[in-house]
């Protein structure tokens, strides 16, 4: 080796060349580095959705670190002598006092707090739309099931992280949220009271919970998120991107723009845009004004407050679930709490985790897939996804029953009964309607393209003739053209005789 390094010809690229020579001698970066720079990223707007989540996570880390310098995770009562005059002289917890001072006394603090909260909502929202993209285009199929699992875990963790985060300021709204969380834990049969007492260090509210939530929120869960995001991206690089079918695109290649410099420019620009958008939201859209809510005292409560949006489906189902309580053999199971907030999310996320396996079992498809599906060409999967979305959206709306009743001037009772009915009716309608729309869309290959005009010409004899104009140049691409139907899928009730593959429905 030593002889070969000395006899190498000089790198013609000046200072950069020297640095790379030195590094490559020691680390051997040139070969892998070149592959990385040449890595091709397919171009499609929907691949940007995951980047929204990734870059709002970056904003969360940066703003979050800033907030830890000022926040005090303690429920010890102090007499407030800070910048917010209406509170001066009152006995409030250090956590609340430090959160209020962080907003008013620290320069840039309010912006950082609001950006952190907005970035969190955008982070969870970004994960959700990214997940929808992956689901509806079939990107979770073999070989990417493990990455679907990691992604789902990221969603679960970020929802929990968000709840812990908005619990920390110890304001009246978040304190009520913690109270509800305590009661939900307590409702678990057999072990519930023990888990609640261990987690809170005793009966609610205890004195240790803010400290424990703090270390979970700023260290343990962020570490887990970082590790899983790393694994998510590593797998993506290892397995390469999926892509939509199109000219020159096959299962065995990736078509698009190279990492360096084109994709790098686009994605860096997008990082700036996501950060800029969050900064503008933090500047102009007030979020979680804790000084208006007041500090938390367990005997006080606020009216018409909702949790952050990603907890809305749980709050909604709590409201519309009937008051069933199991009570026998000297024991109580609060089914009105356990079923909607423990069993239901358990089943929901188990279904999400298991979906790739369920679909593989159903279709018998064990092939590797790198080309994406058009959602309309997988009507049952698409309809199942839409049904789940409609169901979750309905119970999400259910978390505002009181606001709806006030707004439309109808009785709360009516709203509640209607929400209970809609929870069943809307998903039941969503499935067949989606199925029908998908099948209709399959009917014409030009779906998603503009209709061409007819050019009417007058012949010498005075006859008018209509001829279709050529396809718009923009529409001439092949991305949205119909896919060949895979061999494991057969048309509705017609039997495909020739292939001899196992029968499955589409």
């Amino acid at each position, binding site marked *: 080796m030593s002889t070969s390094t000395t006899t190498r010809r000089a790198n013609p690229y000046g200072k950069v060349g020297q640095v790379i020579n030195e590094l490559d001698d020691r680390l051997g970066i040139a070969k892998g580095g070149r592959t990385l720079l040449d890595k091709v990223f397919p171009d499609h707007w929907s691949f940007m959705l995951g980047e929204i989540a990734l870059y709002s996570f970056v904003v969360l880390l940066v703003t979050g670190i800033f907030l830890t310098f000022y926040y005090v995770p303690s429920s010890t009562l102090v007499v407030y002598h800070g910048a917010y005059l209406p509170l001066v002289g009152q006995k409030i917890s250090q956590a609340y006092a430090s959160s209020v001072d962080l907003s008013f006394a620290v320069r840039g603090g309010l912006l950082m707090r609001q950006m952190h909260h907005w970035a969190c909502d955008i982070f969870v929202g970004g994960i959700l739309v990214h997940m929808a993209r992956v689901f509806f285009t079939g990107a979770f199929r073999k070989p990417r099931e493990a990455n679907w699992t990691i992604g789902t875990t990221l969603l679960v963790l970020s929802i929990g992280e968000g709840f812990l985060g908005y619990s920390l300021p110890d304001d009246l709204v978040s304190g009520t949220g913690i109270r509800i969380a305590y009661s939900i834990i307590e409702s678990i049969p057999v072990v519930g009271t023990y888990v609640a007492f261990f987690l809170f260090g005793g009966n609610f509210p205890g004195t240790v919970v803010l400290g424990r939530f703090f270390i979970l929120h700023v260290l343990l869960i962020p570490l887990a998120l970082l590790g899983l995001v790393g694994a998510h991206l590593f797998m993506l690089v290892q397995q390469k991107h999926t892509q939509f079918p199109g000219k020159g695109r096959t299962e065995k290649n990736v078509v698009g723009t190279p990492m360096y410099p084109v994709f790098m420019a686009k994605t860096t620009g997008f990082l700036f845009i996501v*950060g*800029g958008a969050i900064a503008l939201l933090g500047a102009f859209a007030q979020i979680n004004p804790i000084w208006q809510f007041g500090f938390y005292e367990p*005997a006080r409560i606020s009216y018409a407050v909702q949790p952050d949006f990603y907890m809305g489906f749980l709050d909604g189902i709590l409201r519309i679930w009937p008051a069933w309580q199991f009570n026998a053999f000297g*024991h109580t199971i609060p089914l009105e709490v356990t079923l909607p907030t423990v069993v239901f999310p358990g089943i929901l996320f188990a279904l999400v985790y298991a979906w790739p396996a369920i679909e593989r079992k159903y279709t018998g498809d064990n092939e590797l897939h790198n080309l994406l599906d058009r959602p309309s060409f997988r009507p049952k999967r698409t309809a199942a996804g839409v049904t789940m979305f409609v169901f979750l959206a309905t119970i999400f709306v259910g978390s505002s029953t009181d606001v709806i009743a006030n707004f439309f001037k109808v009785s709360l009772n009516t709203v509640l009964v209607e929400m209970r009915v809609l929870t069943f009716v809307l998903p039941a309608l969503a499935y067949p309607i989606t199925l029908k729309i998908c099948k209709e869309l399959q009917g014409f290959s030009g779906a998603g393209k503009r209709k061409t005009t007819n050019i009417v010409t007058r012949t010498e004899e005075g006859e008018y003739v209509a001829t279709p104009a050529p396809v718009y140049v923009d529409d001439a691409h092949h991305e949205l053209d119909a896919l060949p139907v895979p061999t494991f899928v057969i048309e509705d009730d017609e039997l495909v005789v020739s292939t001899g593959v196992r029968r499955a429905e589409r």
Partner: protein
Amino acid sequence: MSDHEQRTPVSLTGLSADAPHLQPLARRPQMVEQVITVLFVFGLLFTLLFGVAFVQNWAPWTLGATLGTGMSLFGIGIIAWGKYLMPRGPFVEERHELASSDAEREAFTAAIVERGGGVIKRRKFLAGLLGTGVGAFSIVSLFPWVRSLGPMPKGTLFHTDWGKGSYLVDISGRRVNVSDLTIGSLVTVFPEGMEHTDNGQAVDQTVLIRVTNQDFTTRKGRETWAPQGYVAYSKLCTHLGCPVGLYEQELELLVCPCHQSMFNVNNGAVPTFGPAPRPLPQLPLMVDANGFLQSQSDFHEPVGPGFWERS
């Protein structure tokens, strides 16, 4: 811009400098350069303005507005640069099969099974002993992570600080007299001395309502519990433990703002609407010689939401 889709993708390597795939997408690159210049200049201006706003300690929204606008302008400019002035492609990269060859797979499996497995198989007893030890260690080492976190619940959830003769005081510690409330009004009360403790606030909180001028009975067996029309219920909702903080005076309903459970004050706070499954526990009251309200005893059942151990 559509010709991106129409051209056949090529490999990145071995392209000559004038290859069409390496040309920018923009038909008039100078114009794009000018637009990007404007974006970058204004991006820089807003970034500098952020610095000024911070140093001058302007209002918080000016910080976000300058920072956000500056970042967005730079972002749009960089993307335009990447999209219109860099090689337009499209380029193709072959996927390499992830799976290894059969021989490699076999060699790997053999290494695990034969080399490692052989060592263990020959010492089954030792391996079993080690496995048991590791299992026991992983369970035992969890103990401090669970048990040290908090006390056992024991009977904590079954009683409150209310007892025989506890005076009802409001949040400022003042005893409540029968002459204090007008009919239809209410006050949150605590057992005397507990009004500023965590347990007093979170567990003992009780809502005292004056419903009529007369003694009245909410349910059979509670004839003496509501002297002179004063009735007291635990303020903890039986659904999820939120304070039942709203009172609908005309209908005489206590309403929980969290999930809209409603409790009828007249018949022992039986839930009339919403997800709460049980009535609010009623606190038996009495009046001392000076007209101050006291509790006869603790609540007769656990307060707050349901849990496994309650009957």
